[in-house]
């Protein structure tokens, strides 16, 4: 038989049992689609997490109280009372850390913010004016926190764009008074003086959801930001490095300075940590890699299930097919004729299933992406992996039983039960 003839025979073979062909294809479709969808979502999540870090500014250092641990990127306020406002001022002193371009201490806590009947639970961040430049933020309307607000413990607030929308809906928040719950009880009334432009993209620190107040207001009026000695505390000092290549050097300078200030010997493990963007990225990449591996395992299981589906259908149909093979051999088909037919049938099913699976998987990934739950990035790797595995399984289990049957003498195949 020539190839065209074999192709026609294979097509008739598939067409003769549409349910069997459809079910086999379904196995391939599910396997391919799930792998593409899951790996795309994994990639998307990874990129949106790491992207938010790099998006925050490429030359940032964070000084945080306590030891930095994986997953403990943002220590909750009050968990460690080791970093003071005076430490931040020392870092800002050019005599100590000459290359720190911007030093922006903050005191952040989570609490309830209320306007009228609207009520959001969000991060209230006490900052100095430097904060704006440190994170490359822009004020959309109104103004940011000023030196005067900080020194006067002004009861003013700047809202992130999402926070403004959540609290005020459509109408203008500027000049309105919001109430902030004090964790210890009671409320502080703040006047909204500005709104930030949407920052976007950043799901990690999410500045769009923030309510920003003067650091002194956060320390004294909203939260209890003092240690036993009565010193003002900060939850983080954000340092922008002028020259990106000197990040390590400046990290050392800050370490040395703070170890000395906190009474540790040089080289000791301090009660604070200095973390660079790169460190954060490395840690988060570690976390997201686990996520990607996890999704990959689920995808692999889907492939396996799809493969078992293909295998089952192929093996279940073996009785009928074995007798068909016996008959075809009795009519003069050679083993090569039989194998060609089954190979082509398996190729047609696997490729058609693979194509439909790609369409479905890409569709799911795009749908997830469009729904806003998370990004989904479709990579050629995922498609290649999914299709090659499914096609391999389809081919193997399409040909393996057929090969066995084609090797039988015709009468054995005809008698097969």
């Amino acid at each position, binding site marked *: 038989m020539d190839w065209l*003839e074999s192709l026609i025979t294979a097509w008739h073979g598939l067409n*003769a049992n549409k349910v069997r062909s459809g079910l086999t294809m379904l196995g391939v479709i599910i396997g391919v689609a799930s792998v593409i969808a899951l790996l795309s979502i994994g990639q998307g999540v990874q990129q949106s997490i790491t992207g938010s870090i790099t998006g925050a500014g490429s030359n940032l250092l964070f000084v945080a109280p306590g030891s930095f641990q994986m997953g403990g990127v943002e220590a909750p306020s009050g968990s460690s009372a080791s970093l003071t406002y005076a430490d931040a001022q020392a870092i800002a002193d050019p005599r100590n850390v000459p290359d720190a371009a911007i030093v922006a201490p903050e005191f952040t806590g989570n609490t309830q913010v209320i306007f009228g009947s609207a009520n959001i639970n969000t991060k209230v961040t006490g900052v100095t004016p430097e904060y704006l430049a440190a994170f490359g933020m822009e004020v959309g309307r109104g103004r940011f926190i000023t030196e005067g607000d900080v020194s006067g413990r002004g009861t003013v607030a700047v809202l992130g764009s999402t926070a403004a929308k959540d609290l005020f809906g459509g109408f203008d928040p500027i000049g309105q008074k919001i109430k902030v719950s004090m964790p210890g009880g009671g409320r502080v009334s703040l006047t909204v003086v500005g709104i930030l432009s949407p920052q976007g993209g950043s799901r990690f620190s999410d500045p769009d959801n923030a309510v920003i107040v003067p650091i002194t207001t956060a320390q004294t009026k909203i939260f209890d930001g003092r240690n036993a000695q009565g010193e003002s505390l900060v939850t983080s000092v954000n340092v922008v490095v002028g020259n990106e290549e000197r990040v390590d050097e400046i990290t050392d300078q800050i370490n040395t300075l703070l170890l000395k200030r906190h009474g540790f010997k040089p080289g000791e493990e301090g009660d604070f940590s200095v973390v660079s963007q790169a460190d954060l990225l490395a840690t988060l990449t570690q976390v997201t890699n686990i996520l990607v591996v996890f999704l990959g395992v689920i995808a692999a299981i889907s492939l396996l299930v799809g493969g078992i589906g293909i295998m089952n259908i192929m093996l279940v149909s073996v009785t009928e097919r074995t007798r068909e093979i016996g*008959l075809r051999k009795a*009519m003069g088909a050679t083993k090569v004729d039989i194998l060609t037919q089954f190979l082509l049938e398996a190729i047609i099913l696997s490729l058609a299933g693979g194509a439909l699976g790609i369409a479905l998987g890409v569709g799911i990934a795009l749908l997830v992406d469009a729904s806003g739950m998370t990004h989904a990035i479709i990579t050629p790797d995922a498609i290649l992996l999914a299709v090659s595995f499914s096609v391999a399984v389809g081919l193997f289990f399409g040909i393996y039983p057929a090969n066995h049957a084609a090797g039988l003498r*015709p009468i054995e195949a005809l008698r097969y039960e």
Partner: protein
Amino acid sequence: MIAIQNMTKVYGEGEAAVHALGGVSLEIGKGEWVAITGPSGSGKSTLMHIIGCLDSPTSGAYSLNGVEVSGMNDTQLAAVRNREIGFVFQSFNLLSRVDALGQVMLPLQYQRGEKRLPRGERSKRARDMLGLVGLGERTHHRPTELSGGQQQRVAIARALAQQPSILLADEPTGNLDSKSGAEVMEIFHRLHREQGLTVVMVTHDPKVAAQAERVIHFQDGLIAEPEQQGFDQAQPKGFDQAQPKGGA
């Protein structure tokens, strides 16, 4: 045309071995109509399958049209099956979900060499063959839409499609009622008479065997009464159900 020398066929090994054929020698000439009869397990079907190249003997020689078949490989055997032999089974063995025309065209797909029919002419050949068995009007019916007799006639048309030199039939009327069986036998008669086809038929129906020119009776893997003319009508009832000797 068919020459078999001292052929044996053993199934299984050791204690459980079944000697289906115990050294059979046989010749069938061109244009003969031979019926092979005998009780179940006597080896008649085994011989038939070997003649049809569907099974291979354990030992012995088999030459078909002067060509030694017993040493052939898979591809050569496939060519012999395709070119020389038309096989009709008791259980029809039609492909489900394929119409009558498709069934008859099946062996034409596997043609090789000069005898190969161009694709366009195959459906004409298939129609001719269906016409020959009286099913010219039922070319697009599937097996489920045909009666048993009609299915067997499709199978005969399929066996004839390649214009083989021998038509082999293994209990062709075994699954049919007497009326359909008679119709099928009539077709065999006509083919034998009009086209001089060599027909070898396995049957345990004495009435069917009696229509043959020559009857070969099998017993315990051997030809019991060689060249006996006329079937022993006085054979006791239930004889056909005798169990194979030496079975498990």
